[in-house]
């Protein structure tokens, strides 16, 4: 349906973006360039993205640190902050090494420029996979340390004293003679200092902010409705508003329309067909919405996906009974299962899920002859740049992206084919004039828009031997591949097997001697996407409810049974023990309550969660308490780690309680928060998060809190009722 560049060769991409160029060389070039511009003053990366009260001119001390004449420090974030707190994390790393004060540190988003701002884990600019802190931990500390050294050198030169006698603390540079300066007065000089290739970093005992909960850099703006924060708030002179009426089924093609009624809508300009649907242009957002509602469109459904989700499930159930391609195998599951004294067999069904971030998608684009400017919460800047450039027949560097704060994403804004940015490019071409156009999605556009967490069926058989030890695990998964056919395919899909479909199963660190994972990847015309924790969003549910049932079969305590299987994974065992201990595991519960546990590793972090549920008279469940323990390496910002685990739990809980996207004859049944009812405050349990102290390299935290909550709650329900919630969401079955 869409004329997107679906397959971008990574090598072409690298060449186009100059990624082979060593970063050190680029940095020197940048410093030289800025030094040569007279006073070293350059215009900042755009006033709109800057925090309120910031100056418009700053000195780039290096590519990640700018300082203005007032002494404000701007950390240039290569990552999109969509709520996960990465902006604050990066600010923490820089501020610590720079010895800045908390108050002086602000964050701006980097321009789209992969050579300087690539995610070291991706090789391109982008945010995802809970990699922001992991890939930036050394890089941003080095940037902070380099900026500090540059300030020291500048002060030493200015005051004619040895560098070794200069102190920096809480944003002040000083010398024992009594001379002192804020950063602002030294910034221009600092930018021209020659620095060694490697700058020494602090040792952990010298850290002033890392590990100590640096306050969020965005809390004030986000608690006061500050202007020009999100893409949705963006406005520019002479801007046209647009909405797109997209086809009601994927793969449908535009035939004709009747816009007679729209013409009487005040502010309506025009409606024109484009590659992704009918584009409605208007003077303002409401007029665009009202006019769109008034237009009747005929679609051709000959080539569209016309199946219902019930039909898809029925086809998946058939596949689940047939052996499929082997995704993973170690040992001999069949023989081990033959020897098992007892077995557990279960079939699980997971629905499509929408991400439904609070801020619906939005983007503003302005295309000129040889330059395209985009303003949006871009999560994969390099892909957006690449695809949009292709549509305009430009080079990627001619596409400029100003990244704005995003009101959530959970994966939705990181799109392998640049979906909504590509659409904006097409809308701009359809408009034909060089004029800024803002495209807003409604909530219905978002919920019905696809790019869902795929539907899956898991069919599992596992056993325990006469001594109560795990004996054999056979696991078959049916569900669409997210990565096949995308620009990321070569990284994730091997021999037709998409690792993201079964991650968290075959790679378990449970000591399971004999295990087979089979994977069917049926082709369905519904676009799918990573949804907070990707494959772990369903695999952890299956692994952890199966292990729990096996413990029960073996007559063993659920925590002890797991610990015995985790002899080779001390970090996972440690979070499990900590969560169990803090939750009062094994203690007596009131009647009608149940307690369940789950532990899962994802994005290299370990999270255990113990959930306590209270069964309701109407057969529903209320989760009253969750106790979590997490090990994500060095806890850069403990309060943000707690916040992400709290939020990850809430996000996962809402989904298992009542969220599903269903299709009737290819059309999405849900549309807004009445039919896709999110978790609300009354559903939120009390949550305690305990962090395991660690000196290991930092790992992910945006996603790992989500996978364990589903199985922890399911296990608690089984403990309370004996029922197994194997079909999700829970609204599909009662527990009365």
């Amino acid at each position, binding site marked *: 349906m869409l004329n997107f560049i679906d397959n971008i060769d990574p090598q072409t991409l690298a060449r186009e973006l100059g990624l082979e160029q060593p970063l050190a060389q680029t940095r020197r070039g940048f410093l030289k360039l800025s030094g040569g511009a007279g006073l070293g003053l350059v215009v900042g990366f755009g006033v709109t993205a800057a925090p309120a009260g910031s100056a418009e001119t700053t000195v780039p001390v290096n590519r990640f640190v700018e300082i203005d004449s007032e002494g404000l420090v701007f950390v240039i974030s290569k990552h999109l902050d*969509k*709520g*996960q*707190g990465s902006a604050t994390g990066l600010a923490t790393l820089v501020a610590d090494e720079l010895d800045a004060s908390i108050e002086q540190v602000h964050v701006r988003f980097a321009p789209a420029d992969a050579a300087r701002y690539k995610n070291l884990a991706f090789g391109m600019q982008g945010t995802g996979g809970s990699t922001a802190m992991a890939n930036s931990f050394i890089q941003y500390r080095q940037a902070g340390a380099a900026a500090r050294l540059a300030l020291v050198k500048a002060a030493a030169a200015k005051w004619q004293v040895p560098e070794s006698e200069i102190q920096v603390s809480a944003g002040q540079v000083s010398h024992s003679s009594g001379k002192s300066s804020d950063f602002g007065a030294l910034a221009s000089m600092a930018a021209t200092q020659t620095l060694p290739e490697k700058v020494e970093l602090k040792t952990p005992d010298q850290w002033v902010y890392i590990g100590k909960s640096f*306050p*969020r850099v*965005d*809390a*004030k*703006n*986000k*608690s*006061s*409705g500050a*202007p*020009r*924060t*999100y893409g*949705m*708030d963006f*406005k520019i002179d002479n801007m046209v*508003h647009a909405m797109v009426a997209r086809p009601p089924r994927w793969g449908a093609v535009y035939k004709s329309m009747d816009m007679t009624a729209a013409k009487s809508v*005040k502010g309506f300009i025009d409606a024109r067909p484009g590659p992704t649907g009918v584009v409605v242009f208007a003077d*303002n*957002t*409401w007029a665009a*919405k009202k006019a769109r509602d008034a237009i009747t469109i005929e679609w051709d459904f000959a080539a569209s996906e016309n199946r219902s989700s019930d039909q898809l499930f029925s086809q998946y159930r058939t596949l689940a009974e047939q052996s499929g391609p082997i995704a993973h195998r170690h040992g001999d599951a069949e023989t081990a299962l033959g020897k098992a004294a007892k077995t557990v067999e279960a079939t699980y069904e997971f629905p499509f899920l929408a991400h439904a*971030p*609070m*801020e*619906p998608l939005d983007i503003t684009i302005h295309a000129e002859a040889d330059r395209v400017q985009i303003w949006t919460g871009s999560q994969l800047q390099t892909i957006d740049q690449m695809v949009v450039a292709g549509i305009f027949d430009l080079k990627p560097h001619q596409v400029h992206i100003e990244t704005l*704060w*995003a*009101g*959530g*994403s959970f994966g939705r804004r990181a799109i392998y084919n640049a979906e909504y940015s590509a659409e904006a490019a097409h809308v701009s071409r359809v408009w034909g004039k060089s004029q800024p156009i803002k495209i*807003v999605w*409604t*909530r219905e556009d978002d919920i019905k828009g696809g790019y869902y967490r795929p539907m899956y069926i898991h069919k599992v058989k596992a056993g325990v031997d006469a001594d109560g030890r795990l004996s054999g695990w056979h696991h078959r998964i049916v569900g669409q591949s997210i990565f096949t056919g995308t620009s990321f395919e070569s990284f994730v899909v091997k021999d037709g097997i998409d690792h993201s479909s079964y991650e968290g199963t075959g790679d378990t660190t449970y000591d399971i001697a004999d295990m087979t994972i089979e994977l069917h990847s049926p082709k369905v015309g519904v676009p799918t996407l990573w949804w907070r924790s990707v494959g772990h969003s369903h695999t952890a549910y299956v692994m952890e409810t199966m292990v729990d049932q096996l413990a029960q079969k073996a007559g063993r305590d659920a925590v002890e049974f797991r610990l015995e299987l985790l002899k080779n994974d001390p970090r996972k065992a440690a979070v499990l023990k900590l969560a169990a201990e803090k939750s009062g595991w094994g203690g007596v519960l009131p009647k009608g309550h149940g307690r369940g546990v789950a532990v899962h590793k994802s994005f290299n972090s370990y999270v255990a969660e113990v959930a306590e549920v209270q069964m309701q008279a109407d057969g529903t469940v209320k989760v009253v308490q969750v106790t979590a323990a997490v090990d994500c390496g060095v806890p850069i910002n403990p309060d*943000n780690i707690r*916040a*992400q685990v*709290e*939020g990850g*739990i*809430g*996000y996962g*809980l*809402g989904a298992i309680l009542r969220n599903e996207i269903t299709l009737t004859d290819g059309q999405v049944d849900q549309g*807004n*928060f*009445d039919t896709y009812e*999110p*978790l*609300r*405050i*009354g559903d*939120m*349990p*009390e949550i305690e998060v305990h962090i395991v102290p660690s000196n290991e390299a930092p790992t992910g935290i945006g996603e790992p809190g989500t996978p364990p909550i589903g199985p922890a709650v399911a296990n608690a329900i089984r403990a309370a009722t004996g029922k197994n919630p194997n079909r999700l969401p829970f609204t599909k079955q009662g527990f009365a």
Partner: protein
Amino acid sequence: MTQLKINGVNQSIDVEPDTPLLWVLRDHLDLTGTKFGCGEGLCGACTVHLDGEAVRSCQTLIGDIAGSDVTTIDAISTKASQAIQAAWQELQVPQCGYCQSGQIMSATALLTETPKPSPQDIDDAMGGNVCRCATYARIRKAVHRAAELMEA
């Protein structure tokens, strides 16, 4: 032409009377603190105070509120709102933050009416405000904290 007072300023709004207040605020007056989340009164991101009461601006048509007094997050400054905003920062409530304007307007209305809310009062008053980041546990704590700050 609809006459009304917005954030203490008299405004004459020349839009179709069926235009939701939300879009008048955002598109015509450039008051973007009030957010668009669902357009159906289901998420509370667009909550403003209309004559002191928390309402969903996406469900409030401009033609129906002539002569009213509207206050938005962009300008609210009462004892309750200041306590709420201080508590929101102290407890680091926002994540993506997009819903928080609406959360703060609802919480302010609650504290103005009920200075010492019970946990149930909070769940009832805030039940219409969705947060997809699920900052709810901190919202509860922050409302209690704001109640303390107001007493101090």
